[in-house]
């Protein structure tokens, strides 16, 4: 089969049309290409479509069928089934660029109940933050996907690389599913490329990685982001001890599942909870910078302090570079989880009953045997702690260079790293150093964490990025700028679930 990458292409950071032609790779022209096809691609395309860009101007290159597919998988395995509520603000809706009506208002309307509205009114003082059900999020995404004709823009396949094109723009190399195209690879020639490929991969705690590799045991030592239902099933058949590692939202979810099961099925499960950093109370350098905490956890409603998505912290970070920016990330960062009343009650019951034990500790190694033995350095010396299972809830992420596409961008595309080691982007989310003629390459999502805008790896953060990108495309004269009149008219169409239309001002071909 013809159309393979030649060594000349592989070695050259800048491709001419002739070089691609020589290789026999089929070339397709589309002005805007987004790579990933998850929520990041979706909200960006949603914004552009509402601004008036026709479907024919956009290609979504993705190996998944629906934008919410990966998210749905990750929420399910990390113990958020469809009826459960996710950790996201009521007005952070990836299916609605306005954030109005909020999820709470929609739920109130759907269920003919004022309870969600009263809840939002009282949060976070008299109630926990109101958050939407996972199922409601997926259903609303499905509706919006159909409304903007997302499937018409979707092209299935795996993206191998993006290279700059001599004369401006980029080539994006896609490997479509075998047998669906006449050539093995297809090159998308575009003026703009947007990259939203999500998490480059999971990383395990070093001692757990060593244990899994050495003993080939993927059954007793699991990561919370991989399927591990067998742990809960096993505990139903025989009493056991589970060691939980990490102090973030996923640890909270896993604890809830263990404690719910304990209550529901009358189990005897015991829990050893090891924190690397054990928070005992409010913490921070001064009165204006203090976060709540206790019993090991740092408490915060959402992944970041709320004002990173639009208020003081967003404005502040936008001005910082280099070490100053890294320091600000450290100040507000750190693993945290929401302080939910239900979780507090469960943990208190566990502490009182002596079956939930939480402490600070560093694990040196894990040894096999009838049961697992963790060698833990605790404040009062080294201890050997036995458990039947270990669940790694630390959610460590792999380096961006572990992702082939991002690695190629760093090596051949001119991209660099930010103070946190991820892709350095401008305030417009253009990847610094990758400009090509009149074209631009953007990135959003977790790969860009550490930039001028902190909340990138969240629903609302992806929408902030989408807006910045769309506005930058408007400044470059490509997409129409979404102003108050069209915004209002399009919002009415959204409310009526009417399809979006191309803008009358669209004159580019």
């Amino acid at each position, binding site marked *: 089969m013809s159309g393979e990458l030649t060594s000349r292409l592989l070695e050259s950071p800048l491709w001419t049309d002739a070089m691609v032609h020589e290789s026999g790779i089929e070339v397709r022209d589309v002005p805007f290409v987004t790579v990933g096809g998850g929520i990041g691609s979706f909200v960006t395309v949603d914004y552009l479509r509402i601004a008036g860009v026709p479907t024919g101007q956009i290609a979504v290159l993705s190996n998944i069928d629906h934008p919410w597919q990966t998210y749905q998988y990750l929420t399910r395995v990390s113990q958020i089934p469809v009826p459960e509520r996710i950790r996201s603000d009521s*007005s952070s809706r990836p299916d609605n*660029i*306005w*954030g*109005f*009506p*909020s999820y709470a*208002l929609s739920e109130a309307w759907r269920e003919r109940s004022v309870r969600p509205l009263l809840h*939002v*009114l*009282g*949060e*976070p*003082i*008299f109630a926990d933050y109101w958050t939407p059900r996972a199922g409601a999020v997926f259903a609303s995404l499905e509706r919006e996907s159909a409304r903007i004709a997302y499937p018409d823009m979707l092209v299935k396949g795996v993206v191998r690389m993006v290279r700059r094109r001599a004369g401006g723009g980029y080539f994006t190399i896609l490997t479509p599913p075998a047998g669906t195209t006449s050539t093995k690879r297809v090159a998308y020639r575009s003026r703009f490329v947007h990259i939203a490929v999500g998490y480059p991969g999971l990383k395990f705690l070093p001692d757990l990685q060593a244990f899994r590799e050495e003993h080939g045991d993927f059954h007793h030592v699991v990561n919370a982001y991989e399927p591990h239902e067998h742990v809960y099933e096993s505990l139903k058949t025989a009493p056991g001890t589970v060691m939980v590692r990490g102090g973030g939202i996923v640890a909270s979810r896993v604890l809830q599942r263990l404690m719910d099961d304990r209550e529901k099925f009358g189990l005897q499960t015991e829990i050893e909870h090891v924190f690397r950093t054990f928070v005992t109370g409010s913490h*921070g350098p001064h*009165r*204006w*910078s*203090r*976060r*709540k905490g206790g019993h090991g956890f740092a408490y*915060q*409603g959402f992944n970041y*302090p*709320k*004002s990173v*998505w*639009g*208020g*003081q*912290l*967003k*404005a502040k970070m936008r001005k910082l570079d280099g070490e100053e920016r890294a320091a600000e990330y450290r100040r507000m960062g750190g693993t945290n989880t929401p302080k939910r009343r239900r979780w507090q009650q469960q943990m208190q019951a566990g502490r009182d009953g002596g079956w939930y034990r939480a402490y600070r500790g560093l694990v040196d190694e894990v040894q096999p045997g009838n049961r697992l033995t963790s060698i833990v350095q605790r404040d009062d010396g080294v201890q050997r702690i036995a458990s039947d299972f270990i669940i790694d809830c630390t959610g460590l992420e792999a380096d961006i260079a572990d992702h082939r596409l991002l690695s190629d961008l760093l090596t051949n595309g001119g991209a660099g790293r930010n103070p946190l080691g991820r892709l350095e982007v401008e305030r417009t989310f253009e990847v610094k150093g990758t400009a090509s003629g009149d074209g631009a390459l953007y990135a959003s999502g977790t790969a860009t964490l550490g930039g001028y805008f902190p909340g990138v790896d969240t629903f609302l953060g992806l929408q*902030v990025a989408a*807006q910045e990108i769309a506005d930058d495309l408007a400044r470059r004269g490509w997409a129409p700028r*979404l102003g*108050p*009149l069209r*915004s*209002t008219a399009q*919002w009415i169409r959204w409310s009526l679930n009417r399809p979006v239309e191309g803008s009358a001002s669209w004159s580019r071909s």
Partner: protein
Amino acid sequence: MVPILIGRIQTRFFLIALVGSLVTLVLVPLLPLSYRDAFVVLLAVAVIGIGWELLYHLLMQFRWEKDWPTLFGLLTGVPEGLLLWFLLKAGAVPLIGAVPPGWAFAVHFGVVWVAVWLAANGPMRVPFLRWRFRGGRLV
């Protein structure tokens, strides 16, 4: 909401001018209140509000999230309304013709406050897409 100081002030002026005026136009014929006095009250809510917003901004600094919960936006109407009422009674509000009866002031102020608060908590985002990401700044 997650306002910045200048965003608070801009949003207050804009919403009082737009939503406050519309509500006032509709309400005044139903109340023992002249248009002139009603609009002087609106102007006073806006101008004295600069001082209030400075105070709210200061108080917000004690919050880790640097946010301003929805409920705060509603309840701050109580001290603001009371202060304005005392200023009116004390004759400290210039341009006012006659001080309205207490109940008429309360109805006018209360309805304007709730309408502005509702607009700020949702509908405002529809025409002004960038507003919520810019701490409430309009310009």
